[in-house]
């Protein structure tokens, strides 16, 4: 389809985004770029929130955007637009070329080599039309049912921030001046509930639960989601502060993923080459206990972190990041790989503008064999953390200090809920002190961890 038709405001399904991306790359090259790369993104979203049985919001829309990155020798610049008119796209390309005159010559700049480019073959199971298949009233009903299950589960749940159902789909196209052009679609749906539990004296606790999937057929029932959300809110009622102490801490899977994210930031090539990571220069060294193996795999069919190629057109792959406690690979894009004299791991992530960053595929900690219950039963006095507040991890020094709430463990069982406490330590030690890893690995996003036990942390409280 000739791109001149794009300015008429036709519904986007009629536009050929692949052709458009290639056309933008051609225009950039014709304008004098030595290399160019174009990304086009298109997405639709639906969301509804039902609160106390009544629809509170309904939102349905779509949008698209386009970005171009050009190289003028080894100077780079990028521009983007949400306006697909011929005039705007011409201006976008022209501005990128202009802008590339004022950036610095960077000997490590450039798009990947042609030989590095490619796209995984076959159906990766990322797109399912069924996320939009429910009729409008049924979508609202999903949200309503999730909330109702929470409200009905206990008389102490009288209020709620609602139940919700969301669906979304996205289409991404990437083309570059080595002739690469790739595209993929992804779909997503989720159902959630956020109930509020209340004691007789009026003290409130809120919690949530959700299910997320690429296909409606894999979504948990709204009733299941609502019930778990209610249990999570109820178990927080009557929370008190804990005493300042050093005790073993169990991280539930939701909060354990944050520990993995800190490792991700530590092995992110961008912080490694700058020496901004406490893991810089540690390749081949022991940075965690023998029980810790962490894998990044962008190829798992249906995964939340799966894509056929990364943000630069390099096929995704499986990378062992930590093997039995030894740091075996950083996670890299083309630029950081060149800086570190290594090869890209296919982890480039690209927004509309700017230089590509680094993002995870499906990034997870290998599970152990014991159940979370077994781990808890072995603790005389300790803390089970279910929520963190704030972002207190310093990746340069490894210093770690976060607000937390959860359940106090006494004699191998949950004793009472605790809140308004802190958990602190240093990441360098924390990874060696992961003393137990449970078997309950489940992906609820692109980063996943089983339940963990970590020793040696300080709980701050009264």
């Amino acid at each position: 389809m000739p791109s001149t038709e794009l300015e008429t405001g036709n519904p986007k399904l009629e536009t050929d985004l692949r052709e458009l991306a290639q056309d933008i790359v051609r225009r950039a090259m014709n304008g004098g770029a030595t290399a160019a790369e174009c990304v086009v993104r298109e997405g639709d979203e639906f969301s509804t929130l039902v609160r106390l049985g009544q629809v509170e919001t309904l939102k349905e829309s779509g949008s698209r955007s386009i970005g171009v990155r050009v190289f003028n020798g080894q100077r780079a610049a990028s521009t983007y637009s949400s306006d697909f008119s011929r005039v705007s796209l011409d201006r976008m390309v022209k501005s990128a070329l202009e802008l590339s005159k004022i950036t610095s010559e960077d000997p490590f700049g450039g798009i990947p080599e042609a030989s590095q480019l490619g796209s995984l073959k076959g159906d990766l199971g990322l797109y399912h039309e069924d996320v939009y298949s429910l009729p409008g009233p049924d979508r609202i009903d999903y949200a309503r049912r999730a909330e109702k299950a929470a409200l009905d589960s206990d008389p102490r749940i009288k209020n709620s921030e609602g139940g919700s159902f969301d669906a979304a789909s996205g289409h991404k196209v990437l083309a570059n001046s080595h002739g690469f052009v790739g595209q993929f679609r992804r779909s997503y749906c989720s159902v959630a509930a956020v109930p509020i539990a209340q004691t007789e004296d009026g003290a409130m606790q809120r919690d949530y639960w959700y299910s997320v999937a690429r296909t409606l057929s894999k979504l948990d029932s709204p009733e299941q989601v609502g019930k778990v959300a209610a249990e999570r809110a109820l178990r927080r009622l009557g929370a008190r502060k804990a005493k300042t102490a050093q005790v073993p801490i169990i991280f539930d899977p939701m909060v354990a993923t944050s520990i993995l994210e800190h490792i991700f930031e530590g092995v992110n090539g961008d912080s490694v080459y700058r020496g901004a990571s406490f893991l810089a220069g540690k390749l081949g060294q022991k940075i965690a206990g023998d029980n810790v193996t962490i894998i990044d795999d962008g190829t798992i069919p249906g995964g939340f972190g799966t894509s056929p190629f990364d943000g630069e057109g390099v096929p995704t792959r499986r990378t062992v990041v930590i093997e039995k406690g030894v740091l075996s690979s950083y996670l890299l894009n083309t630029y950081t790989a060149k800086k570190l004299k290594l090869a890209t791991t296919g982890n480039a992530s690209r927004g509309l503008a700017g230089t590509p960053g680094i993002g995870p595929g499906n990034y997870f900690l290998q599970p152990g064999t014991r159940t979370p219950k077994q781990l808890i039963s072995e603790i005389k006095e300790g803390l089970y953390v279910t929520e963190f507040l704030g972002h207190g991890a310093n990746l340069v020094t490894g210093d770690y200090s976060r607000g937390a709430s959860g359940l106090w463990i006494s004699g191998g069982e949950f004793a009472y809920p605790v809140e308004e406490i802190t958990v602190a330590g240093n990441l360098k030690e924390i990874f060696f002190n992961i003393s137990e890893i449970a078997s309950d690995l489940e992906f609820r996003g692109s980063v996943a961890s089983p339940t963990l036990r970590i020793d040696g942390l300080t709980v701050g409280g009264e």
Partner: protein
Amino acid sequence: MDKQVHVDQQRFFFDQYGVTENDLERYLAAALSAGGDYADLYFEYLSSTSLMVDESMVKSASQGISAGCGVRVVSGERTGYAYTDDLSASRILHAARTAALIASAPAKTPVAGFRQTAARSLYPVTLPSVDAEITAKVELVMRADKAARAYDPRIQEVRASYSDELRNILVVGSDGTFAEDSQPLARMNVSCIAKTEGNSARGGSGGGGRVALDFFFGDKGPEFFAKEAARQAILQLDAREAPAGDMEVVLGPGWPGVLLHEAVGHGLEADFNRKKTSAFAGLIGKRVASEGCTVIDNGTMPWRRGSLNVDDEGAPTQETVLIEKGILKGYLSDKLSSRLMGIADTGNGRRESYEHIPMPRMTNTYMLAGQDNPEDIIRSVKRGIYAVNFGGGQVDITNGKFVFGASEAYMIEDGQITAPIKGATLIGNGPDVLTRVSMVGNDLKLDEGVGTCGKDGQAVPVGVGIPTIKIDRLTVGGTAKKDPGGFMQ
């Protein structure tokens, strides 16, 4: 129909997109075609620039535009929302009919004629920075890089960035609301890493506001932010472990006002109180802070990052007293909550972009100055910490628990500031933390202009401010097994 709009400023969407008043009335009529109490349209055209220098090279430069229109239909407590990034009549009408699906009643007619919200000029820039010469912006980031490196040879990694934007908006409502604004926003950021044998630390600083480029060529320029970032990184090299547990905490003036934002600001947003999901619900008229505490949200401060001539619903922003001498006075409201709760619209309806539904948000939130000398406040503390710089914070508005992370803090021992301590999270309870404020300094300061607040996935620029204050008890999340000063609660 009676047309009351007076053309007294540049009509961006009229000029650039050929929008007419007839069009706007037609879109609003479509939005109310299935009934509803209120409908509005939010047109947005955002252009932005960003630059980053790393390893003394300008590694990235980008520019872009994003434009669209969001249509909202409100019916009772229900909101329907749809948007389009294509400003053609057919796509806006389609969005209006989609948003209209929230209602199911006979069509309503928007009021005839628009009334323009009174013009104000809190950020009268003549040349928006987004249109200024890019070479001047390159100069800023390069100067920042140079100044940070010159500060100390141990500063070995420097990243300096500059970004600006200009947001043109037009808001029209079925009640005759008509507001236009052109909102500039610019900021610089510098982050450094200091390294010595076997030790490293980071520091960061930044600032800006709704200002023109010349702002950064004044005293709050690249050298100011670079030196501040470098100073913090060097200081942190010698920081010792922070203590753990409850203790006295003194907050320095300025950015530590993030305490107010987290501890009370969010909890006073009207939507949470309408739904009774906030720990502050039902506390109007009650004491929530000590006598010395008066907390204000003020969207009308010239040039400030959190300020707006009109909010994203077309209402003028204002100065709102949240807490007066310790007594809770009011909430921050938008149109929906003010109608449903029967309270005044305080002009706090904000949204991230045309893709988002507006809700009550803060603007610039600060505590008024008190009587105490900052030196006296420090002297009054036997053992505690003095926190002067923070990262971000977070709050659970339902149970009131909030955190904020100190990035520059010191021990106070026998009334003297002693050693710097490592970053630590501070945690407290919103509804009572301010009741423990026993001293309020006479040195109110606002932050440099770096705050971005997130709520329900929507980010908006905000400001905070506070004088030096003393909090008699707050939990500090350090690691010190034995307190360096010899105390542990």
